[in-house]
């Protein structure tokens, strides 16, 4: 659908437009196909039998009655899928179906496929599993104190899954010499992604080849992991991803339903579909880690001379992305602020709950919350406005952080200025009537991880652009469209380079049989990496066509202008059509197909753990929130949100704004209401949309978005990420506003009405954790502060 709107006044024809995304009409007309919409002839329906205890040994599984039920085609248990896997190579601790032991309530123990979903469901009831219960561990404190060990092969005691200890410079020595120090404790509750589409897979094994049509963010990793788990050669696996109905990090791991669909299709020789119920999505989880945190900072003349940070992550039952989440907890403090010295000690524990993993912001919203709330208090005690204290300590553009990360463009100062000015922060802070308040916070996120999950030298994104003699331009890519607008980014970049309209670019997408690899939609990497690869491929085609046109027009290659399916000489009078240029080039060279690739060129430190945090570029956000607290009901209502995001360069304005607004929404949900809650037996109490509260249209305040554009040298046309970063400043800005409104420091989220009322009744000064765990952190890896830290223009 083309819309009438002004061209951007930025020298580009397409980049930066406010125009519809490429699949807008398909989606609003209900024609977009998602995995559960796929129906194949002879298709069977699969269901998973799930554990009814949170921790126990499996004594027996009796599937005989289920197998005997008419219409049941196959039943499998852990014995049929014994190969261990995990998304991270360092942690291969999962099986699709529990083997010998279950570690969370809801863990799959058996799978069934049958002629109908009803029969499959009835068959589950006929499977008899008996358990010998084990001690159930539901918090980091319990995990550390418990005698039982969730994973006996782990090298750490106290159910610790991963321990990080890094020190940059001499933190204790610096703290001792500081004029002012302060310490605080924080708790950030666990929440889940809650994509509107539940996980779904259709598996089709035929002629020795397995096709998976799956709702997934990163099919590349399914291709790496599933052949091993299913015992098929990698070349025999085809992964197709339709439109994905939301991800937010919740569709990144290989999941039991996908693996069981594949296995059952191999066994039966028929297509098998698994579509999870809403309740089951809560068990797949991989959401926000609940995190208990402690921070101590030391200041000299208003500068952050030292920061010592500790975090205790509740990881759930398996590793998942947890190692990365643990490292990310300590990685991005230095990308916003110039820290003199820095120490991070982080431990992730196993507990008997659905595994936590990467939710929007992946391990960084929790420490960001702690840091931004902490700075708010430091500013108050030092008698400095919170924005001024932050601005005084900002990392400089084009500098190196205390933990050896290379920062390129940084528009954070401008972001802070924009939201402070627009919100009237200085006039309001401390001056609004009781019950009204305003708060400020900032954040930062990566534009893709510079190092891949499987370390290798190959490109992270590859795109092919093809021109055929009809004049059609096609772009082939393996990225996934989870709602962020990646298809639009691809079409617009190719269109911009070739001077055509985005709807003149045919997209061939996410079928592993026909597209080159892309690592997937995670870590805010797609615009940066797929975008650069697309530009690379399109520029090569452009060069070839320019040569063709130059020859036809007796002009110089460098003077050819691409505009609206015509290739002009510099005089803007002589031209040949795009079709003509393609046909001439095809006659000269044969098939016109060009590939583009992107491999990040990271600069990072030489120490263990240095691989988490490096990115081609960092995005920055600042947020001010005004709230109104109802002192009778305890309800916190955000009145207005001002948010500025340093996007580098905006490719699709609507999509960038949409990501900012969506990030604000998800941050408000985490700050105000979303939390996974468990019974003492480990049953998730709110595994449904009725009980798991998320904000509705009525809860959402007005959002005023400012986009700060300072093109980054690494990004395509200067673009940086926007999918995750804007969430980060929202929870701390909200609690900083609640403090301004009612004088209570909420050092934990969500800020629910019951907590607010209790705090007001008891005249509490703060709500939050009062102790952390005395964990025996090992001697930290000691790293020198880089010599060029915080210098400009390194």
């Amino acid at each position: 659908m083309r819309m009438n709107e002004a061209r951007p006044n930025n020298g580009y024809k397409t980049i930066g437009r406010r125009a519809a995304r490429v699949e807008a009409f398909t989606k609003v007309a209900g024609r977009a196909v998602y995995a559960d919409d796929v129906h194949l002839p002879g298709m069977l329906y699969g269901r998973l039998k799930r554990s009814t205890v949170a921790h126990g040994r499996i004594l027996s599984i009796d599937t005989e009655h289920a197998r005997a039920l008419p219409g049941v085609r196959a039943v499998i248990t852990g014995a049929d899928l014994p190969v261990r896997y995990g998304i991270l190579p360092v942690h291969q601790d999962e099986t699709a179906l529990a083997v010998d032991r279950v570690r969370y309530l809801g863990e799959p123990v058996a799978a069934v496929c049958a002629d109908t979903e009803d029969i499959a469901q009835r068959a589950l009831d006929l499977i008899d599993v008996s358990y010998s219960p084990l001690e159930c561990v539901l918090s980091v404190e319990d995990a550390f104190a418990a005698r039982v060990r969730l994973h006996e092969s782990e090298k750490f005691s106290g159910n610790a899954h991963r321990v990080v200890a890094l020190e940059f410079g001499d933190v204790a020595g610096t703290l001792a010499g500081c004029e002012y120090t302060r310490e605080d404790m924080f708790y950030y509750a666990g929440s889940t992604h809650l994509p509107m589409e539940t996980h779904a897979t259709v598996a089709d094994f035929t002629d020795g080849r397995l096709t998976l049509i799956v709702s997934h963010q990163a099919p590349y990793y399914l291709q790496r992991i599933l052949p091993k788990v299913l015992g098929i050669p990698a070349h025999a696996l085809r992964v197709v991803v339709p439109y994905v109905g939301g991800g937010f990090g919740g569709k990144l791991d290989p999941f039991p339903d996908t693996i069981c669909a594949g296995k059952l299709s191999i066994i039966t020789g028929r297509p098998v579909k698994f579509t999870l119920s809403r309740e089951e999505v809560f068990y797949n989880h991989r959401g926000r880690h609940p995190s208990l945190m402690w921070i101590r900072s030391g200041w000299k003349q208003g500068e952050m001379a030292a920061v010592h940070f500790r975090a205790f992550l509740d990881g759930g039952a398996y590793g998942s992305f947890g190692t990365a989440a643990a490292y990310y907890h300590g990685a991005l403090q230095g990308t916003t602020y110039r820290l003199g010295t820095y120490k991070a000690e982080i431990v992730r524990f196993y507990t008997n709950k659905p595994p936590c993993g990467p939710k929007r912001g992946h391990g960084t919203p929790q420490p960001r919350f702690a840091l931004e709330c902490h700075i708010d208090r430091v500013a108050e005690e030092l008698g400095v406005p919170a924005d001024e204290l932050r601005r005084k300590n900002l990392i400089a553009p084009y500098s190196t952080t205390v933990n050896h990360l290379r920062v390129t463009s940084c528009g954070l100062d401008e972001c802070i200025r924009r939201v402070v000015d627009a919100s009237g922060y200085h006039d309001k802070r401390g001056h609004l009537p009781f019950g009204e308040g305003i708060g400020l916070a900032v954040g930062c996120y990566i534009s893709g991880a510079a190092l891949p999950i499987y370390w290798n030298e190959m490109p992270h994104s590859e795109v092919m652009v093809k021109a055929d003699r009809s004049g059609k331009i096609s772009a082939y890519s393996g990225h996934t469209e989870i709602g962020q607008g990646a298809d639009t980014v691809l079409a617009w970049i190719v269109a911009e380079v070739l001077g055509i309209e985005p709807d003149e670019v045919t997209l061939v997408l996410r079928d592993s049989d026909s597209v080159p690899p892309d690592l997937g939609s995670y870590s805010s990497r797609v615009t940066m990496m797929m975008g650069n690869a697309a530009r690379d491929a399109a520029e090569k085609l452009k060069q070839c066509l320019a040569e063709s046109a130059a020859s036809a027009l007796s002009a110089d290659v460098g003077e050819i202008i691409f505009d609206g399916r015509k290739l002009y000489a510099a005089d803007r009078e002589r031209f040949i059509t795009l079709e003509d240029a393609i046909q001439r080039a095809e006659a000269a060279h044969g098939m016109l197909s060009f590939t583009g690739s992107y491999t990040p060129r990271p600069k990072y430190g030489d120490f263990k753990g240095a691989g988490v945090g490096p990115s081609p570029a960092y995005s920055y956000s600042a947020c001010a929130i005004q709230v109104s607290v109802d002192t009778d009901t305890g309800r916190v209502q955000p009145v207005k949100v001002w948010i500025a995001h340093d996007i580098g360069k905006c490719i699709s304005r609507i999509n960038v704004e949409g990501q900012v607004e969506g990030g604000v929404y998800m941050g408000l949900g985490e700050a105000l209401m979303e939390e996974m809650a468990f019974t003492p037996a480990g049953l998730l109490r709110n595994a449904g949309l009725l009980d798991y509260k998320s904000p509705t249209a009525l809860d959402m305040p007005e959002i005023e978005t400012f986009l700060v554009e300072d093109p980054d040298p690494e990004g395509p046309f200067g673009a940086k990420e926007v999918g995750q970063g804007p969430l980060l400043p929202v929870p701390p800005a909200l609690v900083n506003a609640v403090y301004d409104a009612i004088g209570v420091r909420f050092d934990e989220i969500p800020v629910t009405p019951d907590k607010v009322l209790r705090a007001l009744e008891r005249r509490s000064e703060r709500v939050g954790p009062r102790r952390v765990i005395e964990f025996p952190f090992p001697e930290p890896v000691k790293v020198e502060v880089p010599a060029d830290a915080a210098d400009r223009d390194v």
Partner: protein
Amino acid sequence: MKRTIALQVNGAAQEVLVEGGRTLLEVLREDLRLTGTKFGCEHGECGACTVLVDNTPALSCITLAQLCDGKSVTTVEGLEGPVADAIHAAFAEAGASQCGYCTPGFAIMFHHLMERSAAGETIDPRRELSGNICRCTGFVKILDAYERGTAKQRV
């Protein structure tokens, strides 16, 4: 108990043999292969499955198919005419779809609200749309699309 029901779906007469417990959503998606209507929560909480039954919004995931015998059903695929055109254009211009999974439910609600609006009723879109959950947009661009849609309708 199985029973044959007669439905008028998007203007076409359909007869479907359904079990007593089968929902309208299942009949639409599985029997009639009208997959534009989405399964989101199965509890009537998210609104992704919203369709019009005799011109009134209904949550098809908690509506028993047998109770719809003799009724007309409009799904997202059946939205046609000037109001539907306005909705489609408004959604695209505003950028109101991201992942798009909640979009069909919103499109149905828009159609219903815009018809009520055209009949002279004052509509509070925030309140009326609060039964439809979107996890992508924060509702900002959806509410913008509603304003755009009603503006197009008035032209």
